[in-house]
């Protein structure tokens, strides 16, 4: 495959134009903005305490006196939970993805750039993390240390970085022998400069796509842990709502359906954006 040569005009701007022409991707962006706005400001508009018992338990939507999304097994407002539950998931996902990027990109960049024994050592290290089922690994970390939001974010980060490391490494392997890198080396740029200022910016497009998708995966991951009951019991989240209503959901479909819909929409928005970015950066692969 030929190296990606920038066509006429700035490649970033071209990609942006491609992205904005993609209806699904724009829908994803709008959806995500809506969810973020709901998480940030929703409680101003729907001013209900999600932890307070407001009505009879398991009242369905549309029943007399029930809130829009019904009440849960304790009689708490499900809609209030959905409005307020996003902040934990989104915060955890952001911190976890930050960790994934820091660890994954550093290890992948060093392995790909230096090659040889450094590459072997780092990739074998990566493999150790890769054979452990991520959710199980994170679950054990959270259980053994303390069940706080911080531990959950760290655990997800620690369990999710190998993919990013491999991707970064592959990109560095591809790029490091290209002309512009040789040119930088010829004018005497340091290794540090070549890695971070010369190669890294060129490795960004696939990394950005992958980070968008990892954001979605981290949200699924967080909701899975919260569903299992791992996480700060006082920090309400969508996954936790589903987990808590586990015993009674047959008497109230709304208690699991609406929080799940919130998780699904958030992850879907990231998937759509990621897909759109992929097409925008890589027009040849469109429609695959």
């Amino acid at each position, binding site marked *: 495959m030929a190296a990606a040569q920038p066509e006429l005009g700035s490649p970033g701007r071209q990609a942006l134009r491609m992205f904005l022409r993609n209806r699904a991707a724009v829908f994803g962006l709008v959806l995500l903005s809506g969810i973020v706005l709901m998480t940030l400001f929703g409680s101003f508009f729907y001013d209900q305490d999600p932890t307070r018992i407001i009505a009879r338990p398991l009242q369905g939507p549309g029943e007399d006196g029930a809130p829009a999304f019904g009440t849960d097994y304790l009689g708490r407002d499900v809609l209030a939970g959905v409005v307020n539950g996003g902040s934990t998931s989104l915060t955890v996902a952001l911190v976890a993805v930050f960790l994934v990027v820091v660890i994954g990109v550093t290890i992948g960049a060093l392995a790909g750039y230096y090659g040889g024994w450094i590459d072997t050592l780092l990739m074998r290290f990566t493999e150790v993390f890769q*054979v452990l089922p991520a959710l199980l690994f994170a679950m*054990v970390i959270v*259980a053994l*240390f303390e069940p706080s939001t911080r531990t959950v974010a760290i655990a997800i980060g620690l369990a999710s970085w190998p993919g990013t490391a491999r991707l970064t490494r592959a990109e560095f392997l591809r790029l490091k022998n290209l002309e512009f890198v040789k040119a930088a080396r010829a004018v005497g740029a340091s290794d540090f400069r070549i890695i971070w200022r010369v190669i890294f910016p060129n490795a960004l497009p696939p990394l950005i796509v992958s980070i968008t998708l990892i954001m*979605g995966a981290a949200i699924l991951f967080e909701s899975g842990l919260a569903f*299992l009951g791992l996480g700060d019991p006082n920090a309400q989240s969508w996954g936790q709502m589903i987990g808590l209503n586990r015993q009674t*959901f047959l008497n109230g479909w709304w208690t699991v359906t609406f929080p799940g819909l919130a998780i*699904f929409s958030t992850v879907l928005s990231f*998937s759509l954006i990621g897909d759109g970015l992929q097409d925008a950066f890589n027009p040849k692969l469109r429609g695959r």
Partner: protein
Amino acid sequence: MKQIAARIAWSVGLILAVIVMCFSLVHLAPGDAALVIAGDSGAGDPELIEQIREDLGLDDPYLVQLSRYVGDVASGDFGTSYRFNEPVTSLIGDRIWPTILLVTTALLFAIVIGVLVGVFTARRPESPVSHGVTVFSLVGYSMPVFWTGYLLIIGFASNVRWFPVAGMRDVRFEGNRFEEWLDIAHHLVLPALTLGLIYLAQYSRLSRASMLEVLQSDYVRTARAKGLAERKVVYKHALRNAVIPVITIAGLQFGALLSGALLVETVFNWPGLGRLAADSVFQRDAPVLLGVLICSAVLVVVINILTDVVYRMIDPRIRVGGSS
């Protein structure tokens, strides 16, 4: 063959590294195993705590404990569960088969149906079904697996009672061996479907993409040019190559599949490894958690090697390249 042998040798080292890392993690964690074992009633008794510490060698230096654990694991002994007071090996032995049954059923379902859908849509790239696959793959990927499980239960086990809500067998079950298997299969449908759907979504899209690529390749054009029936071109020449990426990804994703099984087992009360781990988490039952982690890693490694073997069987280029 030589490469497979090297893979196996390296895998043993890999598992050893996994054991060392997981053991160290447990060792680093705060909390006192002796207090956990003694339980609420025994925690106030310093003599009992001292006795437990001595029995388990908890006061030995880290390296001594580590080498003892590695030695024990190598001989198949994962210690004793704090909670069940039973050997971890037998707990895992009981629970591993339901997990393997669930995971392989889900995977086979996803691969077979996924490839069929992929082939079908690749031959009609502009059809609504083909666009549907793209939508389905994004939707399937974005659904939290436990949520899918509950939706399927609400749809097919609660409103219409086609399938049981939970468990692996009917407790009131009576009958012969065959009927017992049927009963398990009946319980397996929803969990396997739940777990398989995500992967079905991904594999349909993946196999469509690789099929599209293969159908445009030179050798397919040659096969068509020599007048071969289209059916034969697709199913004999193209399919084999289109399946390779699916097998590769399926092998790579096996760890994720086990993670998904953990959640599905919780939703459906399926008596597998994931359920065992999820139950042991709140008791901080470290030997069980360590055992399940290590066994899962072994499963992943074994599947990776098997994928490699299957891969070589399907793709003669790798096989020939490997032996020369």
